[in-house]
């Protein structure tokens, strides 16, 4: 009989969605803080999309987590509130508080982007930058903590790796960028329509996002290499655990095809194709909407596949010897 999977699809989706929201908020806040030009600058568009997109996946993911709780299954609907009665050094306890603050600040941040906020009115804009300063550490904290949550246990050798949290952080930022790219590509009015068209400004901020994503994907590839290589060079538990994603392993196809090829190599190749001419020869950067949408979608699929493979692989492998 196959090993029992205690953390199933709700937890996998949560890890993906929390990373997605955390990445989007971190990207949005950093774009706001570092990019100049005010509301007409090319960074503002990125910040605004990220601000509105970030809270939703995180709240959805947290809701899914509650569905996975044993207490919820037996009808103790609100027993999870026990999480708020204490704080300790358990990664899950720290994560609970991080997520709570994250949801509060991300909602407040999104509020400051509303055109005519009913409360505070024009003053809300003045809160935007101070909140963004909170968002960056909180967003990185949420993204890293999802990896620490899994990595904290010697009993799960596949997860017990210091680079797993880093891999999750990079994947979070990359999927966050992809989410903003996707929303922009779908929601920005097309050329010929009244209002904003495929302006140079749209493509200027698109270039920043695409180039950032390429950089993130590149670093991700390096981390994937390190993750596998050091596990492969280890002995005992970890060496046996990593075999599950190596050739012949149960999750090898999903990992290499679903995550590395679809989620990393394909988007990296397409992004390179459009970025290199601009980077080296200062040609125009104007990828079609369809390409932007396709690249974003495969990056998101890759992010989900990473969480899926890691969460399942950690649970179907275990300590060797007794």
């Amino acid at each position, binding site marked *: 009989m196959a090993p029992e999977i205690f953390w199933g699809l709700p937890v996998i989706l949560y890890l993906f969605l929390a990373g997605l929201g955390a990445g989007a908020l971190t990207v949005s806040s950093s774009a706001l803080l570092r990019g100049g030009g005010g509301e007409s600058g090319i960074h503002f568009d990125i910040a605004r999309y990220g601000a509105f997109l970030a809270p939703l996946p995180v709240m959805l993911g947290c809701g899914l987590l509650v569905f996975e709780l*044993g207490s919820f299954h037996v009808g103790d609907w609100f027993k999870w509130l026990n999480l708020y009665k*204490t704080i300790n050094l358990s990664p899950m306890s720290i*994560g609970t508080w991080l997520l709570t603050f994250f949801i509060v600040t991300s909602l407040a941040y999104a509020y400051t982007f509303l055109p005519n906020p009913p409360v505070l009115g024009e003053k809300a804009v003045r809160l935007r930058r101070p909140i963004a300063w909170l968002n960056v550490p909180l967003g990185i904290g949420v993204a890293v903590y999802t990896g620490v949550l899994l990595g904290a246990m010697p*009993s799960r050798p596949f997860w017990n790796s210091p680079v797993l949290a880093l891999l999750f952080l990079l994947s979070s930022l990359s999927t966050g960028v992809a989410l903003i790219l996707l929303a922009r590509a779908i929601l920005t009015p097309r050329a010929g329509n009244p209002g904003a068209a495929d302006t140079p400004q749209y493509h200027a901020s698109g270039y920043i996002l695409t180039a950032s994503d390429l950089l993130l994907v590149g670093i991700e590839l390096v981390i994937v290499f390190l993750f596998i290589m050091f596990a492969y060079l280890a002995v005992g538990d970890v060496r046996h655990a990593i075999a599950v994603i190596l050739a012949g392993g149960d999750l090898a196809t999903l990992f290499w095809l679903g995550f590395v090829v679809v989620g990393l190599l394909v988007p990296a190749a397409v992004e390179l194709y459009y970025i290199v001419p601009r980077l080296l020869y200062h040609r125009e950067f104007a990828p079609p909407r369809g390409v932007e949408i396709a690249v974003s979608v495969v990056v998101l699929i890759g992010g989900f596949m990473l969480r899926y493979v890691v969460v399942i692989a950690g649970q179907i492998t275990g300590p060797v010897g007794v």
Partner: protein
Amino acid sequence: MTGNPQHNGMARRKFLQASGAIGVAVAAPTAAAASKPARKKRYGMLIDARRCYGVHACSVACKAEFDVPLGHNRSWVEYIEKGTYPNVTRSFLPRLCNHCEKPACVSVCPTGATWKREEDGIVVIDEDICIGCKYCIQACPYDMRYPDPVTGTAKKCDFCVHRVTQGLEPACVEACPSRARIFGDLNDPESEISKAIATNPVTVLRPEKGTEPNVYYIAADHTDEREPRIPNQYVRVDTNRRLKERR
């Protein structure tokens, strides 16, 4: 007094601080009598695998003692078969919660629903607090915890805390027909278990996980299917529970 003198001194100091804090004036002789510290216990178990012949009396007694749902076990006996005929052996490995000195399950619990008892070192779970996040189930290197589908909380062996606090032995110890199990206080050098551990070669399970188990074994076969002692040696492990493979 057999306890650690430094430890006694600390306990006494704590008592005096506590009595001072609540503002109780106590006469000196009474204080001396009351502060005579109850030496902390550290319950542990020693399992002599040579004496175990796999009758599963412990598993049955454990199931009978607790309302363990179908498909789950708080304790079980594993069979380890190895070798090629005629050079073969089958050994038995009774498993239960190790009540570790550094329990991995406790350090990951986000609600404080599980903890190691100060007074006797038993690792327990408070069902009223546990939310069933299953983090401890992931964190235990011995796969000792299971999600109870009735209560929605994590459950595990608790050394029969309701029995041992009444001076009885755990149900598995009492049921064992071959006296393969010795239960007792590891902090008492005169206890049967302490003497047996001191005079026998003992091992613990998965010491590399850093949990410092309090369940010791004599002559346990640590062989695992995935890492046989001799390359390509036939090894078969049967856990005799729903999950047939060890994890």
